[in-house]
């Protein structure tokens, strides 16, 4: 089984688009949450969100003509991937379609004999659904509504829809679009998968990518996720579930994981990408190693689609499996990046699950939720949270859980309240628990030979 390391990281988040810029803000306890501006949410129960601000794909990719029509989440994925790929020192990005099929020829002049074998570079992303063409969709539906029958007239619907919809906007909604675009950008031709296990998705993508590398089915895997759901029906869906914070008057303080007055999560958007590589491959090309992925656990609650299992067994087993996979003890984990959505349900259940998995050590392991600052990036959450763990290890510093002021007896662990903290961090765990009961946990460790 190959050892798997991380050689590049990149993200596009509500708090910025550079690794160092966002990290600095996380440690300073700043917030990416503000009044929703992507659509008029003034009367929605939740009118705040964590939007990506001032994003321009030109800044990240010189020539993105091959990606015309790429939706918002795909653009985030492309930018985060470019960032991570370049950090990893991998050879020239294929930013034009022409070069994608002729990588060996076009880069022969630049690369030495150790050219990257693109058939051995794979991709595993958690790409969310793209954005609905809202105007066209709603128009077609309303124009064809037959109030008498209480149904749409599908003949009339088609007439209007064909007039208003276009192929590109429709195809770019497919969840495998970020994946497909990233492949065109990088030329990667190895195993390529997209998963969409809701809030657990990018933790799962990175975990499964790790398994592909362990087995030797690829040398390099681009792992991560990208999601953008801050649009009318996305917010509608979560508001109907009463999953979102409605603390609209004070956006930076609206996300309160583990706090007694928590009232739900804040919807965010963005992307996180990590370059995963077998240790051999990283060494051969002299890559700088940021951390090692040592553990992955994946389970299902099999309980209800609406609620987590209050006994938290699925979460417990995911954590225990990850630790067993890493061959480490609870006391070796110096930081847990919690799922910590700030919903009433999750935070209490997750606390209980950590106590079960970590036993007497639970009281001393520091736990924090960056969702308090960044919001919940849904399919991309796991990726940005894993990158956070990598940075914690790199700098021996732990990001805080902000907005933690009122003690909840159900939540009585050390959540690093309100202020970042220096600490020796050799290994960190990241939890992600999806709606419907899919649970995933990753463990990363400081690299040592």
């Amino acid at each position, binding site marked *: 089984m190959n050892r798997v390391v991380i050689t590049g990281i990149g993200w596009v988040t509500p708090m910025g688009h550079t690794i160092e810029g966002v990290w600095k803000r996380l440690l300073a306890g700043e917030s990416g949450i503000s009044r929703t501006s992507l659509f008029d949410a003034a009367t929605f129960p939740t009118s705040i969100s964590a939007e990506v601000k001032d994003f321009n794909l030109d800044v990240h990719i010189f020539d993105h003509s091959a990606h015309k029509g790429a939706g918002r989440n795909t653009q985030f994925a492309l930018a985060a991937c470019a960032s991570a790929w370049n950090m990893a020192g991998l050879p020239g990005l294929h930013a034009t379609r022409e070069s994608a099929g002729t990588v060996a020829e076009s880069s022969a002049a630049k690369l030495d004999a150790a050219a990257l074998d693109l058939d051995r570079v794979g991709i595993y992303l958690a790409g969310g659904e793209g954005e609905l063409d809202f105007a066209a969709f709603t128009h077609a539906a309303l124009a064809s509504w037959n109030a008498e029958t209480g149904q749409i007239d599908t003949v009339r619907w088609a007439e209007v829809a*064909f007039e208003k919809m276009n192929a590109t906007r429709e195809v770019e909604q497919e969840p495998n679009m970020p994946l497909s675009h990233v492949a065109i950008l990088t030329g990667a031709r190895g195993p390529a998968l997209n998963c969409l296990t809701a809030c657990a998705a990018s933790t799962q993508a990175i975990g499964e990518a790790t398994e592909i590398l362990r087995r030797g089915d690829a040398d390099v895997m681009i792992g991560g996720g990208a999601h953008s759901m801050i649009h009318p029906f996305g917010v509608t869906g*979560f508001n109907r579930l009463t999953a979102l914070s409605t603390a609209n008057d004070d956006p930076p303080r609206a996300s309160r994981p583990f706090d007694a007055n928590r009232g739900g999560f804040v919807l965010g958007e963005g992307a996180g990408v990590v370059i995963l590589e077998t240790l051999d491959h990283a060494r051969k090309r002299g890559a700088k190693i940021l951390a090692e992925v040592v553990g992955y656990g994946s389970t299902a609650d099999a309980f209800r689609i609406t609620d987590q299992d209050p006994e938290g067994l699925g979460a417990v087993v995911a954590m225990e499996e990850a630790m067993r996979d890493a061959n480490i003890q609870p006391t070796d984990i110096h930081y847990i990046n919690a799922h910590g959505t700030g919903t009433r349900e999750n935070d209490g259940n997750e606390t209980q699950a950590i106590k079960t998995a970590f036993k007497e050590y639970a009281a001393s392991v520091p736990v924090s939720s960056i969702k308090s600052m960044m919001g919940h990036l849904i399919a991309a959450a796991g990726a940005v949270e894993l990158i956070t763990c990598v940075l914690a290890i790199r700098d021996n510093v732990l990001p805080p859980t902000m907005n933690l002021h009122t003690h909840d007896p159900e939540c009585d662990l050390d959540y690093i309240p309100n202020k970042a903290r220096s600490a020796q961090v050799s290994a960190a765990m990241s939890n992600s628990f999806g709606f419907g009961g899919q649970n995933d946990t990753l463990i990363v460790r400081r690299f040592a030979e």
Partner: protein
Amino acid sequence: MARRVVITGIGVISPIGIGHQTFWQNLTAGVVGVRTLASFNPGGFPSRIAGEVPPYKIGDFVPKSYRKATKVMARDIELAVVAADDAFKDSGLQSRAYTDAPTINSQRFGCNIGAGLISADLNELTAAMTSARSGNDLDLTAWGREGMTQLTPLWLLKYLPNMLACHVTIVHGLKGPSNTITCADASSHLAIGEAFRTIQRGDAELAICGGAESKVNPMGLIRQCLLNRVAVESNDQPAEAVRPFDASARGTAVAEGGGLFILEDLDHARARRAKIYAEVVGFGASQDAYSVTTPDPTGRSYAAALTKALREANVPADKVDLLIPHGLGIASHDRAELAGLRSAFGEALSSVAFSPIKAQTGNLAAGSGVDAAAAVLAIHHQQAPPALNTVDPIDGVKLNVSRESRATEVSVSMSSVYSLGGQNAALVFRKMQAE
């Protein structure tokens, strides 16, 4: 040491039958499930044909206690749940759906069910939208304030793609690794391949895997029309519409359905004397990196997926007895696929029994697990399904096709697919040898 993995249950729901036995009977009898679209009036669409699943009552496929939960199932979810019931019953495994004393170890039973982009029911959503309409626009102010409350609170959960897997794990009590692959037409095969790997490395003894989807709805159909993927000249002869690799291929047909396997660790299967269909011996996956809407015309990466799967299976191309390729019936796509098949098979391509099934089923998209099911049933029955409508192969390529099913020795079969966006996947199956 990689564990050996076998198939001990098959679940199918398709336009040519509900249940894997009915599916196989109808497939080999040449029944075509592509017909005039009936579940809504397709009059405004240029393509008015579809592969539709026969009527069913979802309540018949879940325990009584779960019938209420079926109200929050989109069609795609229902299809997965029905196929899962078929697979479980076929396997003999007693999940909690069938007994108060389940005999499965839930912690060691995984789930990997692929899904597509699920369309919200238009009638449900529009009924709510009308309360906040301003002409033909949705007034967001009215919607946010009042209109959205017309939607059931669990509305979003009806349409999340991971809910196919989640409902199946809840109905049957499966707590092992659970995933949802969303790679369009390649979803089922990638899910099966990943579940195969999960058992190989010892993270589970059992897994239910594959995929389901329905594109038989206005949004599903319009997308295929806008992309010029579906046949528009065959509305009067739907049975002849989908013509995989045929010189007169003129587009595919939207369809719905699902195909699931129960994969099992061989030792575990033997210990409980399970009926074993075949062994999964190879899985290959790759990516085109060419275009988001069309396959690489050289078929290079597609060939790589097939070659990887064959290499893992330790089977040379000329020892594959039956191949079920994707065979959409979209001329340019078929051509690209053929280029890939030629690369991977060489001369053996003209002799392997060649049985694309979409002439009969239409394109089940993320439900293309039915292709894999057909490849395994072929081993079980020692029969190659027909290649209906592959009458005049493109570019005069010599293919071993027949319009009728054929009894033939099938020791090794293969099923391969590719997606819009360029994901490619191939699976190789082998008949169990007497040992």
